[in-house]
């Protein structure tokens, strides 16, 4: 940042020496005393595991005391000075960037060099492929198929009667517990008859229906169910779906229903899927 010229001194416009007073010295001394005591308190508080309220207050007092002391000491020691600095003007293209003159031009060789550098740069993008997931994982589908058992997050199978009227349960395919895209919400409707476009033949009984739990708007879990209005609700952006009418969107930003999962009961009385979802799962893929 050094200047080229040897013009060192300050161009002082105003110089004012604050009136000396005993007050400032007292304030600085008192602030320093507060700082020392507070800093010691802070150290002890941290070492003894005292409350964060004490630790934070002590640290704040120590720093605030120091800040006050610095601000009050400066006018006791130095005058207030106002000064002006010249702005450096650009010197224009007459001034060379270097004093070593080229002896040849070789434009073609320069271009070849730049191109070679470009190839190196592009080649260095290839290792980005390391970020990519293993192929098998990228092509797995939803994991639901005919006969896949519905299990709770604990891995236990679930029977139709395990969901009380007006209740919901989150389930996964038995071979994909915790797989977000496969999460299903079991809903037992109460006091309302399911209607179009619900696939009645995909329900168990006349009240147990299953939908994808992944909101078709932004992918949050649709976690809340209002029994009175049979509304499924996503807390992220207030997407609402009518569970008695094929999870059709009723409010907020979603434009597609939650896809329904065809349900059946296996020989042991546990719930199984009768196939994959009736539509695309989750938010739009561009």
């Amino acid at each position, binding site marked *: 940042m050094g200047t080229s010229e040897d013009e060192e001194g300050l161009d002082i416009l105003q110089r004012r020496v604050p009136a000396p007073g005993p007050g400032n010295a007292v304030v600085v001394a008192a602030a320093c005393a507060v700082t020392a005591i507070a800093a010691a308190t802070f150290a002890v508080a941290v070492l003894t595991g005292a409350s964060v309220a004490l630790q934070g207050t002590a640290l704040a007092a120590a720093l605030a005391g120091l800040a006050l002391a610095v601000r009050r000491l400066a006018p006791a020691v130095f005058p207030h000075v106002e000064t002006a600095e010249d702005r450096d003007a650009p010197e224009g293209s007459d001034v060379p960037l270097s004093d070593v003159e080229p002896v040849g031009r070789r434009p073609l060789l320069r271009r070849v060099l730049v191109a070679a550098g470009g190839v190196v740069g592009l080649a260095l993008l290839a290792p980005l492929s390391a970020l990519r997931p293993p192929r098998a994982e990228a092509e797995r589908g939803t994991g639901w198929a005919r006969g896949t058992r519905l299990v709770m997050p604990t891995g236990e199978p679930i029977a139709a009667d395990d969901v009380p009227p007006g209740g919901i349960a989150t389930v996964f395919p038995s071979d994909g517990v915790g797989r977000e895209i496969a999460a299903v919400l079991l809903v037992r409707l109460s006091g309302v008859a399911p209607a179009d476009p619900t696939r009645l033949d995909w329900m168990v009984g006349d009240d147990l229906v299953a939908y994808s739990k992944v909101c078709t708007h932004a*992918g949050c879990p649709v976690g809340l169910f209002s029994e009175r209005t049979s509304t499924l609700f996503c807390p992220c952006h207030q997407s609402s779906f009518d569970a008695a009418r094929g999870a059709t969107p009723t409010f907020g930003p979603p434009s597609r229903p939650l896809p329904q999962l065809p349900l059946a009961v296996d020989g042991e009385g546990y719930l199984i899927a009768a196939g994959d979802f009736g539509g695309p799962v989750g938010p739009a893929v561009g």
Partner: protein
Amino acid sequence: MTPLVGRMLDTLDERVALRRPARHLANKVFPSHWSFLLGEVALFSFMILVATGVFLTMFYRPSTAPVVYTGTSAIYAGRELPEVFASIVRLSHDVDGGLLFRRIHRASSHVFIGACIAHLLRVVLTGAFRRPRELNYLIGLTLLLLAVGSGYSGHNLPYDVLAGTSLRILYTLLLSVPYLGEPLALGAFGGEFPGDIMPRLFVVHVLALPGLIAGLMTVHLLILGRQTHTQLPRTGIDGAQRVVGEPLWPWQAARSTGLALGLGATVALSAALVPWSDVDLHGPFEIAQTTNTAQPDWFLFWVEGVLRIYPPIEFHVAGTVVSGPLVGGVLLPLALVALGYAYPFLERRRHPEPGDHHVAQHPLQIPFRAGAVAGVVVLLVLLTLAGGNDVIARLLGLSTESVLWAFRIAVPLAPPLAAWGAAAHARAQGRRWT
């Protein structure tokens, strides 16, 4: 200066010839107006973030594998938790000073982003982005974006239920990108959500972003040093040639030191009083679980708002889908960022003023600028409010549906109206400082 310090400085000077550059630096002029300190607040809060962040990093474990937490937290003792979440519970309950430094880190992150925004507003409103400072404006805007990226990645490091929800929405936004959605989302997350995101988020937050911020801040300050500050107009001073103010040494140094210490005291006191994102407030993220209070940090509330109020429209065109998350969560933010980068050049087209500009302008001097700022600010404030439309509905005793529709109507209409009104007001006032 004490003799000891003097002797040490002499020793140093004899070896690295420091005296002349040090004196040049000490004589560097700083304008006295408070608004020139906003950038310093950003700088000091970044320093606090780095210092506390180094401490936090030592206890953080970016793995989601389940472990049993066995520390002193009454809420989590004996529970199986994702290791990353457990490491923050341990930091908060079992590490000396851990809770304090975590809270200070969070508080400083809010200050950092807030100060960057305020500093940007000062620069835009006074025309300090004009030639010759366009480059430093572009660097500054980049620093704001990096700061927001740091805030977002840091918000998600605890892997609590807020983080899980916010990461799931990021995954959706990446997925919505036309043609490239799937490779982008799977590539960024290393698999289908949640993939292997935590180690990646960790290295981005503790290494890549702070490294970039530190580097760009250094360049920002070096350019500032070469160009000097802009100058509020003053009679008898040709602001185009000279900058007036206090030299760095001694009063300005005392002021800046006081500011840094005062900022430290403020965030420390706030950490004593406010449970900034305490680990006890939200449980760990579990797949397919969320909470009613799911929300991003305040500086991304506007994205939340646009996702909420976007109408239920999704259409297929040219083999891809144009969805709400794409338009509201990807294209609109990108458009705003592009507008930010292009602004100095757009304004110059509208108001061609040849030559360099070193004297600050009144915020209402250029109607085009007053209108642009008013439009963007009203848009962002409205969208931020829309991110809390349910809370607003409850407070006003209205239905969420009517509040939603009010925002759907206001968001496209109010910003252009505000821009037009502010420009007309500025034109009528004809205010200028010079």
